């Protein structure tokens, strides 16, 4: 990492953890915490989708893993007495495991076939949540307790959310922290050998195999990391809303995760984060347009993709460069 990048990261961290909370306390717009927390979590799920794009697969199934992760956390906290903080990684791991089982057969598909199957996956997730006894059908799981205290060796890292004066701020900080960790991991993946191999897979699977890459293994690995991101994002969401229903994550969410990646730029690690922010705020800003909201929104998206096929971040790209 060069100095320019380090400065960029520093500014970003100060903005997220310092300036935003300060601005919100000055302006009194506490509702923004919920919005920004959502953006942070949605951008984690989108980061996962982005990684599947990176191996050359269009993933419209992230909603299924967000839903699964949410249910894992909800069930473990309400029925098995787990601390929320333990369920967070467990939700991620559960989704990673599930995605290995699902990915093994479907990752052989390419292009529109893979995309279609993943799209169906989201719907299967919703139907499973409706049908399974453990998920409590359409009534969902409600009154999920707020996250408790997280301490290691008697040292309190995170206080019990129920005792906090301002849990909104706490949720925002946790979500932003998770987002930073996930994007740091993604950045590392992309800039290490794993990322180079993923790119080789995206550009030419056959050649990749002929230079000795175990392409099947690599695809499943990338997909399971992607689903891990989806799972923890879902679990965190559930902790905030304290409830989950089969409709908590649907096909539209899956499609939005994918759009976030397109919008921000598939060639940029931070593309999905920017895409999520723009899409989320764009939708809200258009609220005043009333019944034309969806029409204007969709038209703008189409125009953006036509004129900036490599995403918004490509605007800042120097000629011939990358990332």
């Amino acid at each position, binding site marked *: 990492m060069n100095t320019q990048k380090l400065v960029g990261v520093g500014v970003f961290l100060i903005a997220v953890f310092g300036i935003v909370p300060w601005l919100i306390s000055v302006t009194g717009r506490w509702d923004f915490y919920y919005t920004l927390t959502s953006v942070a979590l949605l951008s984690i799920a989108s980061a996962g989708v982005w990684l599947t794009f990176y191996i050359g697969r269009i993933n419209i199934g992230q909603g299924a893993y967000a839903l699964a992760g949410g249910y894992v956390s909800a069930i473990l906290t309400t029925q098995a007495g787990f601390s929320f903080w333990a369920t967070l990684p467990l939700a991620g791991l559960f989704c990673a495991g599930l995605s290995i089982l699902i990915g093994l057969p479907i990752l052989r598909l390419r292009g529109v076939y893979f995309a279609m199957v993943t799209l169906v996956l989201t719907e299967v997730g919703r139907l499973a949540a409706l049908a399974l006894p453990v998920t409590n059908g359409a009534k969902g799981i409600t009154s999920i307790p707020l996250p408790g205290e997280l301490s290691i060796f008697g040292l309190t890292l995170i206080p019990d959310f129920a005792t906090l004066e301002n849990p909104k701020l706490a949720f925002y900080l946790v979500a932003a922290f998770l987002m930073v960790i996930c994007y740091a991991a993604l950045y*590392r*993946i992309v800039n*290490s*050998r*794993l990322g*180079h*191999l993923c*790119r*080789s897979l995206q*550009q*030419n699977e*056959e*050649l990749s*195999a*002929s*230079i*000795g*890459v*175990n*392409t*099947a293994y690599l695809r499943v*690995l990338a997909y399971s990391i992607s689903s891990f991101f989806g799972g923890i994002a879902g679990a965190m969401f559930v902790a905030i809303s304290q409830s989950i229903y089969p409709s908590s994550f649907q096909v539209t969410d899956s499609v939005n995760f994918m759009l976030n990646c397109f919008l921000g730029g598939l060639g940029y690690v931070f593309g999905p984060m920017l895409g999520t922010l723009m899409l989320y705020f764009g939708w809200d800003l258009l609220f005043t347009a009333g019944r034309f909201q969806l029409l204007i929104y969709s038209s703008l998206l189409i125009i953006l993709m036509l004129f900036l096929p490599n995403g918004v971040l490509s605007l800042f790209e120097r000629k*011939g460069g*990358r990332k």
Partner: protein
Amino acid sequence: MTPILQVKGVTKRFGGLTANNDISFDVAEREILSVIGPNGAGKSTLFKLIASFLRTTSGEVLLKGRRISNLAPHKVARLGVVRTFQETTIFRSMTVRENIIVAHHLRSKASLLGFFLGTKQARSDEAEFGASADEIIDFLGMGAIRDEFASNLPQGHLRALGMAIGLATNPTVLLLDEPFAGMNHDETMRMVANVRRLRDERGVTVLLVEHDMPAVMKISDRIVVINFGEKIAEGTPAEIQANEKVIEAYLGSEDAAIGM
């Protein structure tokens, strides 16, 4: 001398079409062997079978006595049998150097997790790959296009890059499918010299499919001729040029006359 590679009675059918019919031949270590034949004769299919990109219908391929047919392609590559493609295949959106570096995958000692964490082993691997890539670039005389994106390269350079990618895997047997296609005379002669040096300096056994007959005659120790999926001749360049069946096969097709 025991052969390094043995092709034993290999047959491949695509539905009703028999692309390879009971083909057998041996390849000696450090040999340069060319497979020639008219278009559609089944040469590329044979290479795909050897590198295990296709499953044989019957017959088998042995590397140093060990059966390699029908293993996963990346496993065969791991054992040292690596193929370049007839259709130019490179990683388009990477530079020449990045293409070659990524192809060093088989040589990594660190695990993917190690690379993620940036362990000492991973860093020394990366440094080694970079140095080795530069060496290959110099070996093939590609220094001027080191940082060029592969998608910007002309056909001749793409072929050279294909070979560089093959080389990066450190193969014991390298299969080159039409390595001189799209090259002018000078480029071809340079590549012929490079293939020779590959064998002489690095001890690589080379199998190649090529239509450029002067180049084939110049470079090959031995030649195997295939027509309609069957092996019709095998021998030294001089023997092949004098072979009745071969002349007949070539006269009967649109391919240029055999010989120099």
